[in-house]
């Protein structure tokens, strides 16, 4: 069962969004975040909601996945909303006054807007990992971070580390499974006892796992050296990333939405 964990939650498909260049998907995600935070009017945020709904429809990712991605951030959403609700003050009369707590209409509006904003943010950015394979993602990150090489950031090495980490996750999960079984066969008890006891029971699993991971790293480094690996110098890539027409269409749509949000900000009255 441990073997079937998918990291990064990628759902293969053939939609417009799946086929987009991973670099453009990252750029579009960043633009979407900008749109969400620029939008300060309800109408602007409504556009943000509309966009995320449209994107999920195009990518044919089920709505269940949205719920799944939002689940872990529910406490954060509630926390931010409550904070805004109680501490936002405005010129108008408070709606409720209860001892030292005053809830203003501005607070209610702000709380709702913040909650909507975070939900859109999580749902929108999750789409990036839902529709892009991890390997494409690392390739794109390597290219997009390219300019940072000038300031001595080891971009290629970072991308290589990410690739190797992705490659070894299933291998190490399988290994953990084996070690756990081996320790259970020797009478290790991992399911009962207090939290500290259970944490202690993990030590005999973690130590062999670390030892084996280091040994693997050593052998992998040797194998890489044998295959003429010497960092990014003089290296070529088999898969060349190429922008297609659809990428520019997506970029244009994103920029248009951003412009629209700015226009809304200017022409609509400030609510808060």
């Amino acid at each position, binding site marked *: 069962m441990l073997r079937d964990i998918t990291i990064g939650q990628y759902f293969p498909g053939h939609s417009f969004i799946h086929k987009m260049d991973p670099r453009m998907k990252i750029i579009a995600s960043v633009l979407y975040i900008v749109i969400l935070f620029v939008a300060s009017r309800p109408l602007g945020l409504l556009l943000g909601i509309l966009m995320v709904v449209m994107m999920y429809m195009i990518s044919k990712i089920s709505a269940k996945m949205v719920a799944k991605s939002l689940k872990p951030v529910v406490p954060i959403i509630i926390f931010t909303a409550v904070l805004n609700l109680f501490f936002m003050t405005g010129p108008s009369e408070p709606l409720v006054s209860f001892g030292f707590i005053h809830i203003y209409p501005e607070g209610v509006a702000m709380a709702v807007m913040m909650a909507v904003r975070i939900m859109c943010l999580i749902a929108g950015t999750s789409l990036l990992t839902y529709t892009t394979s991890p390997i494409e993602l690392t390739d794109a990150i390597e290219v997009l971070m390219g300019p940072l090489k000038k300031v001595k950031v080891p971009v290629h090495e970072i991308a290589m580390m990410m*690739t190797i980490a992705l*490659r070894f996750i299933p291998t190490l999960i399988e290994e953990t499974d084996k070690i756990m079984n081996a320790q259970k066969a020797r009478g290790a008890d991992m399911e009962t006892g207090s939290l500290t006891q259970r944490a202690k029971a993990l030590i005999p699993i973690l130590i062999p796992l670390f030892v084996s991971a280091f040994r693997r790293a050593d052998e992998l480094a040797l194998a*890489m*050296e*044998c*295959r*003429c690996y010497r960092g990014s110098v003089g*290296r*070529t890539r088999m*898969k060349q990333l190429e922008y297609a027409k659809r990428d520019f269409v997506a970029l244009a749509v994103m920029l248009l939405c951003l412009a629209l949000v700015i226009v809304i900000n200017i022409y609509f009255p400030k609510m808060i």
Partner: protein
Amino acid sequence: MNDFIKAQGISFSYHVEEGQQPVSVFEDLDVTIHEGELTAVLGHNGSGKSTFAKHLNAILLPSGGKVYIDGMDTADEEKLYDIRQKVGMVFQNPDNQIVATVVEEDVAFGLENIGVPPKEMRERVDRALMDVGIYEYKKHAPHRLSGGQKQRVAIAGIIAMRPKCIVLDEPTAMLDPRGRREVMETIQKLNREYGITIVLITHYMDEAALCDRIIVMDSGKIILDDTPKKVFSNVRELKTVGLDVPQTSELIYEFLKEGYNLPKDVLTEDECIKAITTLFRRKGIKPAKPEQQTEDCSQEIV
């Protein structure tokens, strides 16, 4: 035949702890391997065979003596990547030599390192995948493949670089019988069809028997170096260094020990059966049913 690998009087030792006497793995070793040869290096654990293998593509440098690969000195740093391109290496654990998360990307890894243009790379990767027979798995994740398939991915990654020689360090040690057969068939195919020089480090006798030449190492010394037939006829010597011989050689050896007159250089099962049936016929032992002759013989003996 050209001398492709030439090791002249090489020694190697390593330090276990600072200030202690270095442990010598081998001393004054001379080995020549010709182009296109399929050579097996036999020896039990600690005989120095893996250490020797690592000298063949400049992973280790000899502390004394010289190793020449196709005329290039492995100690010459400028030639380092030329040597590693000419001599590919496959290790025991297939999991620990696959770098990428997709089969074809892993095969391309070596080519990316030496800067092959993308278009040519595509062709070479596809060619290599076809040569080892895993083309249909090219989009798969390596961890979903069987051990034999993973090891063939590793071999594909090496042959895509078009090496002249492949050194395999116990490539079948972690595989099941089917995986072992797949890998051995691939190795033999590469040797026959492309004339790639193969150095196969192993401790499986049946694998060594398939090679052109066997080098037997024990505690850093070469004790036998000949064709499989000649090497495996030295049953007693192999046993004293803790190695086994193929069952056929052992059987013939037992017969010889009892004083029967049999040819010494018997290796394949067919040859063995033929030798024993000739012996039986000479002694006047007749099979019960002539059509089941071979089966009867082998049953009686085993």
